């Protein structure tokens, strides 16, 4: 047998083994070397056809699983299409104890303000009336049918466990005139924020960061919901939520202004908008 025929025989053996039972790392490397950068999936397709011939697919995918897969898919592309989200800074910074007290006080006031504190005496201002301007997305205005944050938002709104709350601007100048809402599904562990009138930021100087207050975490250390940028726009901005931890039942969403890349723990010097979940 010539070397070439031996090589072909070995390739077919490895391709067949891969299709039926997978290869060890060593075998995979051997196959890659023999194929010299190409691939041949004909054995895999033959095994798949056999599998199809012997598989009864009469049981539908469970609805909750189908919904999760769909949301995951939309989230994946939404994250890719919206403004780039940089990971938060990993470096932990020492925080003065006094800062914590202020932060905790701010949170308590913000939450108290939401809970029926008379307007005018609250840290939280009365939300602006709903925007009537044409709604646009900040990134390339994808068609409604395409993967987009708005498609993900619509999907989440159809979830039975959806949490849907409006943003309220605080007295921080950065939140003046901002409105919008938050949509969150615990079951899907996914959500979207919509903003109207939130000031554009310079990513080289600062970024917005979402914090999710959750019973699983101390109010001093809410869950990091990801950093994001807002570009100049007259319409709505929709941003997917990217929590770093499991969210069991959000009680409050808050947006702060932080240094580029975000922070691990916020000093809460600039809380611009909050959205409290009514219980």
């Amino acid at each position, binding site marked *: 047998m010539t070397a070439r025929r031996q090589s072909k025989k070995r390739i077919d053996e490895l391709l067949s083994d891969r299709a039926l039972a997978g290869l060890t790392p060593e075998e995979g490397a051997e196959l890659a070397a023999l194929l010299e950068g190409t691939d041949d999936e004909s054995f895999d397709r033959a095994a798949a056809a056999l*599998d199809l011939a012997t*598989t009864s697919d009469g049981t*539908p995918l469970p609805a909750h699983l189908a919904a999760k*897969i769909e949301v*995951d898919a939309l989230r994946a592309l939404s994250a890719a299409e919206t403004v780039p989200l940089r990971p938060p800074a990993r470096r932990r910074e020492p925080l003065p104890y006094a800062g914590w007290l202020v932060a905790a006080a701010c949170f308590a006031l913000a939450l108290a303000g939401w809970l029926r504190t008379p307007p005018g005496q609250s840290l939280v201002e009365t939300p602006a009336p709903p925007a009537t301007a044409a709604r646009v997305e900040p990134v390339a205005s994808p068609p409604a049918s395409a993967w987009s944050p708005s498609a993900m938002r619509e999907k989440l709104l159809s979830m039975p466990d959806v949490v849907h709350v409006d943003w309220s601007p605080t007295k921080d100048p950065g939140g003046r005139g901002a409105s919008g809402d938050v949509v969150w599904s615990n079951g899907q562990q996914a959500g979207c924020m919509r903003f109207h009138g939130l000031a554009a930021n310079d990513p080289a100087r600062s970024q917005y960061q979402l914090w999710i207050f959750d019973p699983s975490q101390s109010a001093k250390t809410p869950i990091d919901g990801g950093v994001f940028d807002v570009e100049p726009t007259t319409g709505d901005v929709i941003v997917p939520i990217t929590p770093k931890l499991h969210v069991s039942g959000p009680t409050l969403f808050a947006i702060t202004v932080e240094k580029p890349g975000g922070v691990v723990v916020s000093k809460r010097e600039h809380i611009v908008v909050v959205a409290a979940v009514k219980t």
Partner: protein
Amino acid sequence: VLPRIALGDAAAVRECITRHGALVWALARRLSPTPADAEDATQEIFADLWKCAGRFQPGIASEPVFVATIARRRLIDRLRARKRRPQTELLSEGPGELPDPNRASDGEMCAEASLAASAIAKLRPEQRQVLLLAILQGLSHEEIASVMGMPLGTVKTLARRGLAHVRALLSDPGAQLAAVEP
């Protein structure tokens, strides 16, 4: 539906899940030790599918075969990672049960699957048994050798030749055409 997904059509995602969800779910359940593991596997398979949708070429394989190929690769990876035989809960079909090639006539089976069913029905019994144990139960060659009391080399030869036979039939356009004709 896969080309539309590759172009970023969100509606196609739902359509794909509706169209192929039951197939992926059936494959995942069969090769997963628990329902929870099957759910994880199913999510991973669809994540792979979204990434690979642009590679789909209708002239080479049907969508079900493409989806099953992606699914099998992921499931085999998971099987190997577990390093043990899955204790499947849903093995209602025996490992040696033959597929019914006539299912194609009522539209339940794609042309390639119908051809594969015909091909495997014509194999020698031990060759068919080896292939079905590998395909249906995800057994390794070593495990099949143990189950059937055969030398490992014999199992490998039977499996490779059997799969090569199915592959050759699928590569024959005439055979494929005949399979889809009424």
